[in-house]
């Protein structure tokens, strides 16, 4: 619904400054911020972490905590200055006229109350209705958020429903009192991509139905395109560019916005056709902002004597399109150059997995199992996994949480042993050799990069110790001088200064920690490195730098990279081959280009359709998965995906294990649907016929 043309503003933020007061003194988190939202409008706020997006949302809700406060300016809600409202009035506004949906649904719900009593509370408190009426309206609202079986959900506790359903409940609670303004702070970051897509659809649908004004905060530009009409880009506490989706995405003017686009991998390109351009450095801390333009220290167009003097005003470049940059007329952006790079040649196989399965045994002690005489159950974490990885190539394993990709990594590294099947690595079957029985060479040949930058380095040890230990352990160098030299060289490889070797992890940023983790993994010159979601916890600009780094280091040492991820855009960019897993089984495998083109496996099709694309000109076919992923304890017989498949054929899918159909060139699809039918579908991604 288009916002109406009258100046009916729901929210007006005028030159607001927000500060936190700490031991270091006043920290101006947001120095000067203005924003106006018309009724029914959907506005997106993007930027890296630490840019003040959440602080703005908290200020609107007046939830800044004990040490935060609005130091200047006004926030007007429906024409009333919120600073003049009493605590009583604020309480009445919050939760009924303004609602907020947070990132983590589990912590937004009280685990000791039923869903029903929590939802009803909203109505009972704010509207004083009777319990029966509240229940009725709550059920209706749950139906509106596409909750299956709402009557039953009302009697459940939060832990009994899935993360996606929890977020729906939170959204239902937020919408129940029909708020004028709904704040969504990264509502889908904790969710899987297919679940994210359904939640986003829901937000769009609810907004149309109730004509609610949305303020959508996200770091994901692709989601903003799907949800919002207008978008504001925040950097270090101030708005740097603002406009309609088309203006900001297609007629970008600010260098920071360019920067953000340049560091996101897009589905159309891979590492051979373009490079990612990370934004150098990191967001400066609020109390250390440079004079002049706060983006100056990271900007490629920074000019001394121009950009570092005084305030940079927000200028209007087109109707509704504002940019905060002094040099907009001088700079023109050239998209990152194509990288003429030779495709990695076919090498000898380094890893060959043949019918590998990993089952976890669970002893059921319930009375029912005793009567049935069936006290052992198996969690089928991996079943009949087969694929091959060649030297110097990147193989990605893709799937949603619970699909068994991390279990697979554990089996490979020997932290777990396989139940059956073979894993041939460097000519030896390592499937059942646990890590403490592997010899030095075998261990050295396979190393790992982990997901969480805060957990990957031991906080007690210096960077030099972390890398040096690997060098010493694997006998690359043994004398202390040699080790120090080698540590310096590894730091060089990951483009960090040598002086970093004396630093402790707490003195490093997330991206730097992840670089050290890469250096550590490659220090023993392994023939294969497993990277388990190495960039998913990082900001986009840092993510780009780490992806580039992984790519370069891999090329330099001709290492095989096994890249585990749920992010299809990153996977498309980085990998040569892709393996798609669902519930412990491989659904589809093949080269990167082939996976992204028909024929698709129905699951891959749904995954691709759910990827948020930061380009308003690309139309995605809409395929949404119903229901939840079944438990690995009791997976469906026949095809694992049968219970959620949008192209479900019938009985055959439930009863018979589908064949691995060969689509040529090593592309296999595990499905009952004949290949020619799968090939006949349209591609997921289509470019919109020129919009004007």
């Amino acid at each position, binding site marked *: 619904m288009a916002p109406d043309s009258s100046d009916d503003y729901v929210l007006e933020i005028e030159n607001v400054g927000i500060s936190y007061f700490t031991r270091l003194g006043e920290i101006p988190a947001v120095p000067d911020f203005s924003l106006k939202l018309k009724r029914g409008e959907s506005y997106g706020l993007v930027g890296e972490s630490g840019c003040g997006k959440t602080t703005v949302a908290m200020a609107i809700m007046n939830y800044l905590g004990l040490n935060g406060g609005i130091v200047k300016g006004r926030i007007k809600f429906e024409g009333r200055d919120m600073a003049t409202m009493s605590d009583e009035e604020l309480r009445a506004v919050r939760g009924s006229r303004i609602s907020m949906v947070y990132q983590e649904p589990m912590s937004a719900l009280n685990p000791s109350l039923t869903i029903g009593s929590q939802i009803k509370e909203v109505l009972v408190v704010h509207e004083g209705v009777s319990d029966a009426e509240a229940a009725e309206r709550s059920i209706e609202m749950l139906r509106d958020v596409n909750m299956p079986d709402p009557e039953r959900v009302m009697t459940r506790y939060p832990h009994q429903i899935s993360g996606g359903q929890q977020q729906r409940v939170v959204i239902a609670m937020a919408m129940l009192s029909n708020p004028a303004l709904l704040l969504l702070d990264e509502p889908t970051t904790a969710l899987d991509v297919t679940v994210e897509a359904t939640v986003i659809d829901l937000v769009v649908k609810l907004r149309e139905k109730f004509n609610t004004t949305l303020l959508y905060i996200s770091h994901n530009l692709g989601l903003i395109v799907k949800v919002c009409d207008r978008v504001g880009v925040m950097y270090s506490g101030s708005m740097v560019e603002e406009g309609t989706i088309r203006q900001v995405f297609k007629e970008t003017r600010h260098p920071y916005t360019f920067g953000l686009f340049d560091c996101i991998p897009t589905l159309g390109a891979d590492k051979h056709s373009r490079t990612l351009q990370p934004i150098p450095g990191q967001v400066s*801390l609020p109390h250390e902002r440079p004079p002049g333009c706060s983006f100056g220290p990271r900007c*490629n167009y*920074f000019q001394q004597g121009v950009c570092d003097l005084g305030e940079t005003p927000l200028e209007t470049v087109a109707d509704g399109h504002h940019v905060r940059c002094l040099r907009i007329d001088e700079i023109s952006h050239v998209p990152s150059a194509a990288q003429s790079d030779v495709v990695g040649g076919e090498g000898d196989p380094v890893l060959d997995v043949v019918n590998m399965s990993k089952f976890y045994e669970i002893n059921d002690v319930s009375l029912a199992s005793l009567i049935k005489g069936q006290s052992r159950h198996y969690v089928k974490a991996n079943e009949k996994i087969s694929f091959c990885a060649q030297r110097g190539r990147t193989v990605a394993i893709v799937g949603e949480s619970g699909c068994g990709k991390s279990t697979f990594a554990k089996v490979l590294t020997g*932290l777990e042993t396989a139940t059956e099947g073979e894993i041939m690595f460097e000519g030896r079957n390592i499937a059942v050799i646990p*890590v403490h029985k592997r010899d*030095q060479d075998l261990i050295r040949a396979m190393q790992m990069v982990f997901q969480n930058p805060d957990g990957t380095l*031991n906080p007690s*040890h210096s960077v030099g110790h972390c890398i040096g230990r690997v060098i010493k*352990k694997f006998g690359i160098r043994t004398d202390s001088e040699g080790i120090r030299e080698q540590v310096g060289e590894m730091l060089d490889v990951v483009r960090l200064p040598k002086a970093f070797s004396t*630093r402790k992890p707490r003195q490093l940023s997330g991206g730097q920690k992840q670089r050290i983790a890469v250096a550590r993994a490659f220090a023993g010159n392994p023939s294969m490195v497993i990277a388990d979601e190495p960039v998913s916890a990082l900001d986009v600009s840092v993510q780009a730098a780490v992806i580039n780094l992984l790519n370069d280091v891999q090329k330099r040492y001709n290492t095989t990279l096994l890249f585990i991820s749920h992010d299809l855009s990153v996977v498309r960019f980085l990998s040569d081959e892709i393996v798609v897993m669902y519930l412990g089984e491989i659904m589809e495998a093949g080269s990167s280009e082939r996976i992204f083109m028909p024929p698709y496996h129905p699951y891959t099709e749904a995954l691709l359709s759910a990827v948020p694309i930061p380009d308003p000109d690309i139309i995605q076919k809409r395929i949404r998965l119903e229901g939840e992923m079944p438990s690995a304890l009791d997976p469906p017989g026949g095809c694992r995906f049968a219970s959620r498949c949008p192209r479900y054929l019938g009985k055959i899918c439930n009863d018979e294990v589908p064949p691995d159909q060969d689509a040529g060139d090593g592309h296999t699809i595990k499905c009952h649907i004949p290949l020619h039918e799968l090939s006949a579908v349209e591609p997921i991604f289509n470019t919109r016929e020129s919009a004007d």
Partner: protein
Amino acid sequence: MTDTTTDSARANPASAEQPDRTGWARFFYSIGLLRESPAAMLGLSLVMLWVFVAIFADVITVWGPNEYDYSAISVPPLTVDGHWLGTDISGRDIWSRLAYGARATLTVAPAAILVCYFVGITMGMLAGYYGGWIDSILISRISDIILSFPLIILFIIIITVFGASALNIIVAVTLASSPGIGRIVRGLTLDLRNLEYVSAAQIRGERSLYIMAVELLPNARGPLIVDACLRMGYTVITIGILGFLGLGLPPPDPDWGGMVSESRTMATVPGMAYMPIIPSIAVSSLVIGFNLLADGLREISTRD
């Protein structure tokens, strides 16, 4: 033309943000943070005061701890020159006995803490890291059995069987405290062992002993230092109780608990009450000192 050079110093503002503090520099910086908490500073001064007294006991006293001054028996504090805290019924200088008592307490207590931490950490690490039967049968159950025993009775049994000596006090304290320390360490280890740097160490084939000692233990030290400080206070009380029961250091060597015990009948005699009160105050002040210091340490360790 546009300026496209990216000066690495300019692009990397974080490099200057935190000065490199390693080893002792960091230690003293942390101690410096204590200044912000008045309670912690009070605790630190009380403890340091007694440490000073214990170290310089022979310098700051005129009389020996077991020397009898027959010319001044049972003189109250501040009445006779040279006995500024007075003398006891045998004419021994209370200040001197207090100072040498501090020396005894502040030797035995840290030694006991050291030993029981060694035992407790070993138990807790093994239980937390390996889990399974080592945890549930070997360590946790044994701890439960010891913890379910009334402590004082345990002490009395140990000391009466093996005789009163500094070593046996240490043994008694270790038996009583290490299960508790073991539980704390076990909990910390359970938290830490699932972190990725531990997996990284396992994947590069490190031995379990290395992982426990080098990867896990240093990260458990924060809570353990706080706990050690608190436990130091409790141990001072324990030593006092043992001394009071006559199970402390063998007489006539001065011992704070023993001093209270010897003069306890004087508590109700008019003008003589100072004899049991002064050593009691000494025990309390040292214990309060350790507790306040522990609180302060907890505060700075959770803040950063």
